[in-house]
C-alpha cells in the first residue's frame, strides 16, 4: 500500500470511520432491552455518566496511543512504556480478534435476514422455526459468515482511504437515515407512547440499585468501542496535525444517538403491536430472540411492515459491517506490526477468521460462550489501557500525547482522575458483579467448569490461557514490533 494511502484524508473520513466502528449491532439489539429492563429513564442517567467515566477517556487514550506510537495494539503499549509490558496491548488486540471471529457470523445472520426479507419472506414458516432452521443448518450460517468476511476483507484490501474511508462515507449517513426513518415510523404507530414511556420514564428508586449502574457501565463500555483496540488502530492513520479530542466526543455522542434512535424504533414497535405482558416477554428473549424472532413478526403486523423490516435489517447489516471492517483492519494491523506486508496480512486474517468463526457458525452455544468470555474481556482491556497510561504518567500522557499543539479542545484534568482512579474501580466493581452473576445466577451448579457456556471457569480459563501464551511470547513479540527496551 502506498504511503499516501496510509492516512485518513479528511476529518470527516476519520469521524465517519470511528462512528462506523462504534455503532454496531449492540446499539440496535442490546440497548433497548437493557434500558427498558433497568428502570428506563434512571438507566439513561447512569448510561450518560459512563460516557465520561469510561468510554470517552479510553477513546482519547487509544487515539493518542495509536497516533503517537504509529502502532496498533500489537505494539503500541510496548513502544510507550517498554517491551516488558507489551503483552498488555497484545491482549487488547487478540481479545477483539476473538470477538471478530463470531461477529462475522452475526454480520452474516443480518445479511441473510435482509436477503430473506427482500426476497419475499421466510418460506412460509414461523419465525421461531426459521431462526432454528438457520442456526442448526450446517451450511447457511457458514455461507453468510464467509460472505461477510469476503466483503470486509475486500474493503480492507483497498486501504485506508479507498477502503475504510470511502465505505464509511457511504454506510454511516445511510445507516442514520434508516434509523431516523424507522424511529419516525415507530412513533407514529398507535400506542407507541407506551414504548416511549418504558424507555424514558425514570424509576428513581432504581438509581440506588447497583445493577442499574453496572448494566449502564457495561452497555457504554461495549457500545462506544472503547478499549477494543480499534480506535488505537485508526489512530495510526491520523496525520501529525490531526487533533482528536472533539472527534472522540463526537464518536461517543454519535454512538449514543444511534442507540436512542434504535431504542425508540424498537420499543415503540414492540409496545404498539403487543399487549404489555407479551411485550415484556419479547424484550426478555435476548438479543437474537428479539431481533430475529420477535421483530419480524411485529413488523408484519404494521402497514408496509415488509418494507420497514427490510430497511431494519439493512440498517443492522450496515451497522455490523462498519464494525466488522474496523476489526479486520485491526487484525491486519497486528500482522503489519509483526512485520508482514498488508497484502499478505489481509488474506491471512480472512482465512483465520473464517476457520475460527466456524464453531460459532455451527453451534449457538459456542457463539454464546465466546460472546460472554470476550465481551467481558473488553473490561480487562479497558483496565490494561488505563494501566499503560498510568505507568507512563496519566498527567504526562494528557499533556504530551493528547493536548498537542494542534489540539484546540484540550482534555481537562478530569481525564487524569478518571484514568487513574475511576476506571480501575469500575473494573473491580464490574468483575465482582459479573462473576457473582456467573456463580449465583447463570450456572450455580457448574460455575467452576471450564466447559460450561457461561461459567466463571470458562471465562477465567480462556483469559488466563491467552495471557499465559502472550507472556511466554512477550520477548519475541516485543522485538518484532520494535518495542522499547525493558519497562
Amino acid at each position, binding site marked *: 500500500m502506498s504511503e499516501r494511502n496510509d492516512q485518513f484524508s479528511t476529518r*470527516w473520513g476519520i469521524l465517519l470511520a470511528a462512528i462506523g466502528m462504534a455503532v454496531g449491532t449492540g446499539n440496535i439489539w442490546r440497548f433497548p432491552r437493557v434500558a427498558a429492563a433497568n428502570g*428506563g429513564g434512571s438507566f439513561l442517567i447512569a448510561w*450518560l455518566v459512563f460516557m465520561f467515566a469510561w468510554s470517552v477517556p479510553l477513546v482519547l487514550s487509544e487515539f493518542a496511543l495509536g497516533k503517537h506510537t504509529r502502532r496498533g495494539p500489537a505494539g503500541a503499549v510496548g513502544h510507550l512504556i517498554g517491551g516488558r509490558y507489551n503483552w498488555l496491548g497484545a491482549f487488547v488486540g487478540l481479545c477483539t480478534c476473538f470477538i471478530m471471529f463470531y461477529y462475522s457470523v452475526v454480520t452474516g445472520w443480518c445479511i441473510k435476514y435482509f436477503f430473506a426479507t427482500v426476497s419475499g419472506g421466510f418460506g412460509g414458516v414461523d419465525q421461531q422455526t426459521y431462526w432454528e432452521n438457520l442456526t442448526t443448518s450446517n451450511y447457511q450460517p457458514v455461507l453468510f459468515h464467509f460472505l461477510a468476511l469476503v466483503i470486509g476483507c475486500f474493503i480492507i484490501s483497498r486501504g485506508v482511504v479507498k477502503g475504510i474511508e470511502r465505505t464509511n462515507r457511504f454506510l454511516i449517513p445511510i445507516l442514520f437515515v434508516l434509523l431516523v426513518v424507522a424511529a419516525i415510523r415507530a412513533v407514529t404507530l398507535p400506542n407507541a407512547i407506551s414504548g416511549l414511556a418504558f424507555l*424514558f420514564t425514570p424509576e428513581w428508586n432504581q438509581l440506588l440499585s447497583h445493577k442499574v449502574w453496572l448494566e449502564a457501565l457495561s452497555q457504554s463500555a461495549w457500545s462506544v468501542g472503547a478499549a477494543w483496540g480499534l480506535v488505537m488502530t485508526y489512530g495510526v492513520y491520523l496525520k501529525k496535525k490531526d487533533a482528536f479530542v472533539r472527534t472522540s466526543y463526537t464518536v461517543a455522542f454519535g454512538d449514543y444517538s444511534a442507540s436512542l434512535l434504535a431504542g425508540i424504533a424498537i420499543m415503540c414497535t414492540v409496545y404498539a403491536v403487543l399487549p404489555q405482558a407479551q411485550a415484556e416477554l419479547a424484550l426478555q428473549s435476548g438479543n437474537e430472540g428479539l431481533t430475529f424472532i420477535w421483530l419480524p413478526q411485529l413488523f408484519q403486523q404494521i402497514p408496509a411492515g415488509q418494507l420497514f423490516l427490510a430497511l431494519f435489517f439493512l440498517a443492522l447489516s450496515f451497522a455490523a459491517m462498519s464494525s466488522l471492517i474496523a476489526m479486520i483492519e485491526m487484525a491486519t494491523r497486528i500482522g503489519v506490526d509483526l512485520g508482514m506486508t498488508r497484502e499478505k496480512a489481509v488474506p491471512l486474517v480472512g482465512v483465520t477468521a473464517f476457520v475460527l468463526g466456524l464453531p460459532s457458525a455451527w453451534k449457538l452455544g459456542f457463539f454464546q460462550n465466546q460472546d460472554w468470555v470476550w465481551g467481558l474481556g473488553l473490561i480487562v482491556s479497558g483496565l490494561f489501557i488505563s494501566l499503560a497510561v498510568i505507568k507512563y504518567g496519566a498527567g504526562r500522557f494528557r499533556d504530551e500525547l493528547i493536548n498537542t499543539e494542534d489540539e484546540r479542545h484540550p482534555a481537562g484534568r478530569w481525564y487524569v482522575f478518571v484514568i487513574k482512579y475511576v476506571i480501575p474501580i469500575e473494573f473491580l466493581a464490574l468483575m465482582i458483579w459479573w462473576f457473582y452473576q456467573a456463580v449465583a445466577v447463570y450456572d450455580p451448579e457448574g460455575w467452576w467448569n471450564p466447559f460450561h457456556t457461561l461459567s466463571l471457569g470458562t471465562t477465567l480459563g480462556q483469559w488466563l490461557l491467552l495471557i499465559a501464551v502472550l507472556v511466554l511470547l512477550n520477548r519475541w513479540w516485543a522485538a518484532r514490533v520494535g518495542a522499547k527496551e525493558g519497562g
Partner: protein
Amino acid sequence: MSASGWIMMTVVLVLVWGGFVYLLLETAKHDRD
C-alpha cells in the same frame, strides 16, 4: 406517559442528539479551515 417521562425524554434527546449535531456542525466548520 407521566410528566417525569416527558421531561426525561426531552432532556436526554436534547443533550445527546443536540450534542451530536453541534459536534458535527463544529467538524464541518473546521473542515473548511
